[in-house]
C-alpha cells in the first residue's frame, strides 16, 4: 500500500504491505536505524518515536496508520546540529551504557518534558515506565532527565554525583 508521511521534517512516500509495522518502515524503507526493536509485545519502548506530537511505540503501529502523520525519530531530534538538551543530559550524566534502549528512552524523555517542565524524580520514573533499560538501573537516566529539564527551563543543572563523590 501507498504510504505518505513526514519523517523528521522530510516527506517520505513508499509502498508497503499493510502488515508492515511503522518501525520497519522507518528502519528498512527509510534507513533510519536509530529506532530499535527490543520486544514483540509493546513493552520495552526501544522503538519509541513521536507521532503527531505524542510518544508512541512504533512496533505497535502499522505503517499505514501513520499515513499523513508527522513522525520524529531520534535522528530528527538534533539532525547534524547541536544536541537536544535531553541528548546532552544523557551524555553528561552517563544515562546510557549499551545504547540500545537509548533512542527510545530519549524520545520518551522528550515527550515527558514537553508535558511537564519540572518533573519530580517520581514523575520521571513513572513517565519512563514504558522504556526498559537493562544496563543502567535507571539511576543515571533519571539524573539525565533532571539535567535536561533544568537546561530546558534555563536553570543550572544539578551537579553530577561523582564530583561530590570525589570531593
Amino acid at each position, binding site marked *: 500500500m501507498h504510504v505518505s508521511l513526514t519523517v523528521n521534517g522530510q516527506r517520505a512516500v513508499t509502498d508497503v504491505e*499493510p*502488515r508492515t509495522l511503522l518501525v520497519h518502515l522507518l528502519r528498512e524503507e527509510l534507513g533510519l536505524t536509530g529506532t530499535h526493536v527490543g520486544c*514483540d509485545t*509493546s513493552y520495552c519502548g526501544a522503538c519509541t518515536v513521536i507521532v503527531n506530537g505524542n510518544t*508512541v511505540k512504533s512496533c505497535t*503501529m*502499522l505503517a499505514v*496508520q501513520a*499515513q499523513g502523520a508527522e513522525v520524529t525519530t531520534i535522528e530528527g531530534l538534533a539532525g547534524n546540529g547541536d544536541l537536544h538538551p535531553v541528548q546532552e543530559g544523557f551524555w553528561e550524566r552517563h544515562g546510557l551504557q549499551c545504547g540500545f534502549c537509548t533512542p527510545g528512552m530519549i524520545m520518551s524523555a522528550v515527550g515527558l518534558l514537553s508535558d511537564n517542565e519540572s518533573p519530580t524524580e517520581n514523575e520521571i520514573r513513572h*513517565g519512563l515506565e514504558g522504556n526498559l533499560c537493562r544496563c543502567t538501573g535507571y539511576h543515571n537516566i533519571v539524573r539525565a532527565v533532571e539535567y535536561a529539564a533544568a537546561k530546558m527551563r534555563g536553570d543550572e543543572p544539578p551537579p553530577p554525583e561523582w564530583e561530590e563523590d570525589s570531593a
Partner: protein
Amino acid sequence: MYPRSFEYVSPGSLDEATSILASTDGAKVLAGGMSLLPIMKLRLFSPDVLVDIGRIPGLSSIQDQGDHVGVGALVRHADTASDPLIAEHAAALATAASWTGDVQVRNQGTTCGSIAHADIAADQPAAALALGATMVAASANGTREIAASDFFVDTLTTALEPGEILTEIRLPKQGGGSAYEKLGRRGGHTDYAVAGASAWVDLADGAVCCGRVALTGVGPMPTLAEGVMESLIGTDGSDAAVAAASDRALEGVTVLEDLFGTVEYKSHLAKVMTRRALQQAIAAAM
C-alpha cells in the same frame, strides 16, 4: 514478531465502516491497536481484514451530553485520564486509564478499545462496570445501547455482535464518588491487575444509599460484586461496614489462577482492593 498478511481498509465514515464489516468475513476493527496488534504480531490472532476506524471523524471527543458524559471510540487513555469531565463524573475511570499500560500505550490506545477487548486483567472495564456505563454499538443495522452489566460476557468476549463497533461509552452523571484500586503485576499500580476493584458509592442522610463494585483480574471477565453493595447499602460507610461488605466481594464470582496469583491469593486481594476502593469512593462521596 510480525503479523500475518491481511487486507487493510480505512473507511472515512462510520456508515462506510459498518457496511464493510457487514459484508466482510473475518474483519476486525482497529482503533489504537494496543490490544490487537500485539496478539497479531505474536500470530495468536490473524484477521483477514483490518477495518481501521482511526480516520473516522467525530469519534475523538469527550463530551458533556446532559445526563451523561460520552467518551468516543477514538478517545485515548491519556485523554480519559486527564479530562476534567471524567475527573468530575467518573474519577474511577480516570484513575483506571492513568494506570493502563505506560505513557506510550496511553497515547495510542483507546478507552473504548480496552473495554471492547475485555482483557481479564484490564483496568478500565472494571471502572466502566462500577460506574454503570452504557455502551453504544453501531452496525449496518443502526445503533443500540448495552448496559455495562450486560456487556462483559466471557473471557475476551463482549456482547458486541459481529459487525458492531463500540462507538461510545456513556458515563452517567450520578453524583457520589468513585475510585479504582489495584495491585499490579510488578507491585503497586504497575502493569495489568493481579486483582483490581472499582467502586462507585453515593450517600444520603449519612448512609450509603446506592453504589456498585466491580472486580478485574480475578475471574474470566470483569464482574460486578453484587454481594458487597447488598451488605453496604444502608450502613454509615464506616471502615467496619466497608470491611464487612468487602468480605462478600467474591459472591457469585469465579476466581481463576494465573501466573501472578493463586485462587486463594486473588480471592484475598479482591477483598482488599474492594475495601480500599470503597473507602476512597466513600471519602470522595462525602
